[in-house]
């Protein structure tokens, strides 16, 4: 049973770390802000949740589960707020790809 839990935990940890690496490559290589924000959401939500599950599977006491749930809840609450405010501010000030957008539903006709 313990070996099975360790294998599951290792899978979760490796997947989370792999998502972080993929997102970092995307952040380094993509060429405008909104593409980079798209890459940035992967380790912030799914990657972090996978790593938290990986910690939880190797825990020895049930009492530590509360802190893990707390981390997950705070991350799920704060990451969308930060991304929303950043994207909104950049969009309102013109944005990096002003002329390349195919659909732009909020820009006033001028």
């Amino acid at each position: 049973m313990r070996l099975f839990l360790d294998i599951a935990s290792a899978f979760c940890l490796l997947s989370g770390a792999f998502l972080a690496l993929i997102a970092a490559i995307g952040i380094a290589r993509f060429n405008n802000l909104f593409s980079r924000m798209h890459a940035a959401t992967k380790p912030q939500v799914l990657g972090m949740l996978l790593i938290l599950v990986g910690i939880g599977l190797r825990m020895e006491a049930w009492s530590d589960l509360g802190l893990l749930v707390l981390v997950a809840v705070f991350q799920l609450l704060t990451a969308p707020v930060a991304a929303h405010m950043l994207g909104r501010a950049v969009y309102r000030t013109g944005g990096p790809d002003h002329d390349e957008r195919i659909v732009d539903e909020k820009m006033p006709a001028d």
Partner: protein
Amino acid sequence: MTWMTVVAWVAGGMLGMAAILTVVRAALGPSMPNRAVAIDVLVAVLVGGLGVEAAYNRHTDTLPILVVLSLVGMVGSVSIARFATSDEPDESDPERIDGTEGSR
């Protein structure tokens, strides 16, 4: 050297590469929002690194640090989005010169 050690080293290596790449983007980033996104991902990578270490050693001493990081990581992006939205404020926009920021 159990197989879990190998897993921890591989995950740590990937997270280290990710941290280096995000720091490179935060240094190069052409504007402040780009740097804010890179720093956000760096915080997520940091949480991942502390988590892998805690899982490998089966201790929970660093879990309060994860709580604090997941809460405080937002502050940087939000304050940058609120106060430093544009690197080059265009002087032709009259509502930015007299200080009123409109409905922003």
